[in-house]
């Protein structure tokens, strides 16, 4: 019965497993959906926060950049005020003095007198002609800044500042100072976000932009064009970008913009440069720059949750497995006889009653090992138990897995075989008798070698003898009684036992 019985049980066990998996999967779906919702909400919050904060940072950096330009222009103004206060008669003298005693970080310094005579190096004169720098000097302002150009002296982009001063008793002169564009980066540089921020100077009308602060140190001074940059922007933001640029062309003081390139959000802000007509400071920050730390934190939380989930699932699985094991043990104990592993009386009665009452043909057989009390006394209780086990194995080997076999109590066994074939059961009983006879007593005792083990059995058939379980049992018991009453070591069918002529 063992293996076949297990096979019968498997579908039930699989169902239990499937149900367990389904519960786990359902829990995980709920868990994952919650996590997904949490992440999406978190990302959305970060994105909103970034957008707001990026805009603030852009504004601050634009102000900082404008301040650094002001720092340059203030330096130029200070020098021009000192020059005005000293009231030099000859510009040539002061030019020679200044050009040989450079104390500032500037690339070049020089003057243009009231007659337009330029006091400058050969290279600077060449640059003034090449870029028509004097046109920048003629603006009617305190100070003006030229468009960036590549310096002949240092080979890198520079800007030149012009400021007026007085000499020789009230004559008007113009002083110029040339600074490296990269100096602006040094002034504006921030400890954090250095690798994320881009700051450009942009000529609104031409849309030309030159990089002042950037993600790559060596990219400073690179030209670009807003029309070309606009091509990278996602289609739905192009109109807004165009509007943003047009507002600069119209002369707006400042304007902000957000857009996406691929999946990255950017915040961009521009502010007009006071002393550089038509030019703006443009600051750009990718949205994810600010959230990098928060994203790291979010990832830690996710890893923690994943680990937690794994531990919880492992615990559930472990508990489930232990529970199943214990249940199986209890199940075994509740329906099986602990000595022989056969069904116990209660389990047998339940199953057999259902079968008999269902009307299915069956044969009920009562077995009783003959003189088992003496056997126990003779061989001892341990050997008695072994003999019981041996008899159980013999029964199991002769009946089918679907038949019910039980140790009914002490040395009593019952079998309910799902058949109505009397000859087949008679052959089985004869075979069991032969096999039990052949069991050697020497296997259980070294001193008793000639004992022959026998049993008596009574059989009744359902529904012929009875279709009620209790009655059927009585019939089989009656037949057994007859066998025991006479010779034992045999079997008898109920219908034979009740014949009046049976002796």
């Amino acid at each position, binding site marked *: 019965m063992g293996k076949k019985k297990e096979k019968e049980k498997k579908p039930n066990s699989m169902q239990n497993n499937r149900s367990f998996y389904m519960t786990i999967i359902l829990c995980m779906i709920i868990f994952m959906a919650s996590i*997904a919702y949490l992440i999406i909400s978190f990302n959305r919050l970060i994105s909103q926060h970034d957008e707001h904060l990026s805009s603030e940072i852009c504004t601050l950096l634009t102000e900082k950049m404008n301040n650094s330009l002001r720092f340059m222009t203030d330096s130029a103004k200070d020098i021009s005020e000192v020059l005005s206060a000293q009231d030099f008669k000859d510009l040539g003298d002061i030019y020679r003095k200044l050009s040989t005693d450079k104390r500032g970080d500037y690339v070049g310094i020089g003057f243009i007198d009231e007659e337009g005579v330029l006091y400058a190096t050969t*290279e600077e004169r060449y640059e003034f002609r090449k870029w028509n720098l004097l046109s920048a000097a003629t603006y009617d302002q305190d100070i003006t800044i030229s*468009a960036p150009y*590549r*310096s002949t*002296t240092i080979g890198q982009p520079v800007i030149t500042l012009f400021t007026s001063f007085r000499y020789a008793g009230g004559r008007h002169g113009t002083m110029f100072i040339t600074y490296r564009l990269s100096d602006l980066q040094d002034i504006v540089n921030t400890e954090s976000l250095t690798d994320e921020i881009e700051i450009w100077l942009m000529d609104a009308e031409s849309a*030309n932009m030159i990089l002042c602060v950037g993600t790559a140190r060596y990219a400073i001074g690179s*030209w670009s064009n807003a029309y070309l940059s606009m091509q990278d922007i996602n289609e739905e933001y192009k109109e807004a970008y165009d509007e943003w640029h047009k507002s600069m062309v119209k002369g707006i003081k400042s304007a902000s913009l957000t857009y996406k390139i691929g999946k990255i959000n950017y915040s961009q802000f521009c502010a007009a440069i006071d002393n550089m007509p038509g030019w703006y400071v443009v600051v750009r920050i990718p949205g994810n720059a600010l959230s990098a730390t928060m994203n790291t934190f979010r990832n830690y939380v996710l890893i923690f949750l994943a680990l937690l989930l*794994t531990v919880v699932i492992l615990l559930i699985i472990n508990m489930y497995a232990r529970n199943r094991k214990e249940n199986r043990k209890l199940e075994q104990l509740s329906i099986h006889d602990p000595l022989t592993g056969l069904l116990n009386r209660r389990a047998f009665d339940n199953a057999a009653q259902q079968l008999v009452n269902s009307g299915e043909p069956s044969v009920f057989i009562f077995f009783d090992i003959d003189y088992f009390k003496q056997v126990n006394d003779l061989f001892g209780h341990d050997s008695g138990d072994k003999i019981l086990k041996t008899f159980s194995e013999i029964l199991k080997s002769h009946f089918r897995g679907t038949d019910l076999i039980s140790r009914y109590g002490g040395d009593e066994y019952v079998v309910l075989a799902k058949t109505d074939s009397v000859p087949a059961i008679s052959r089985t009983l004869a075979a069991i008798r032969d096999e039990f006879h052949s069991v050697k007593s020497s296997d259980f005792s070294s001193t008793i070698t000639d004992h022959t083990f026998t049993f008596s059995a009574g059989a009744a058939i359902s529904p012929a003898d009875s279709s009620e379980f209790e009655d059927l049992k009585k019939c089989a018991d009656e037949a057994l009684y007859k066998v025991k009453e006479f010779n034992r070591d045999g079997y008898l069918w109920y219908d034979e036992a009740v014949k009046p002529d049976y002796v």
Partner: protein
Amino acid sequence: MNLFKKSFIYIITFFCLPVLSLTSCSGSGSDSEKADVSSFEFEALSEIKEGRPDIYLILKLIDSSYWQVIIDGARDAAADLDCNLYMSGTSNETDWEGQLVILEQCMERGADAIILSPDDSVKLSPKIEEIYEQGLPMVFIDTAANTEQFDVCYMTDNLLAGQMAAREMLSELELMGISQNEEAYVGIVVGQAASLTINERLAGFYQYWTKNSPDKWHIISDIMNCNGDISTAAGMITKSLEEYPALHGLYGTNNGPSKEIARFVSDNGRTDIAVVGFDYSDEIKSIINSEDYHASTMLQRQYDMSFKGVQTAMKLLEGGKINTKFVDTGVVTVNRRTLGNPEVVSVIEHN
């Protein structure tokens, strides 16, 4: 239990992956494709003699007509000087990693001076600074790097060249008879948006145009960017013409687009479109020579760049000093009106 364990792993994997993907870890792609960095050949451009200083010329491209002129200039300069001149270069103008290897090889071979046209002005700068700090004369030709750690650079000031191109475009449109009161559009075709040279030519063009063009003459803001694939130029020009029937000018920022523009104008017989470009391809030469078209091109003096580059390297090796770090070798404007100009003839001879 095995089945159980497997199922558990599958469940965890199946559910965790999509959720973790929401963390949107943005992949950071590599900066560029890995170059074939095995080793590069060096060709002697001068007679090699013991005891003379070794000057190394490193080019962006070694197999194009433009760069051949540079080689000629360097060879001619070396012939009159007491130096050994070696040349090497990459076969792709963006292979900065290849040039990094060449620079290393030059150092290993004991170079006394280096003349370089950097493939990438930004990415090669750290290496250039490292070499320069070891005391080697460093001369740039054609392209500068974004560092002050070099001796001198001979190149076209592309910002100014762009301005000259815009001036030329305005004058070609006037010559075509486009009235200042007439609506006219100019389209720009660029080869590669990431190139510093192209960006400077573009910036210069815009600078001049915005200050000097009539109010009714406009640049089409949708710049035609070939992104390295010049074959797309004709399609983009056709589309622009459909959108802007008053398109009367096309500006090519470098050789490839200029060539494609000239071919398009010629193939379609568009005598109503003025062409301004760079370099001297057969296509642009052909429309310049034709009386039917209005075309100009900006020719660089690349022969001068390398000739002066070798001379300067030698001067520096001999202890000489250079006051100027950036020398604009300039461009000449070539069109039907300037073809007979001796300076133009001389530059064309070297192209």
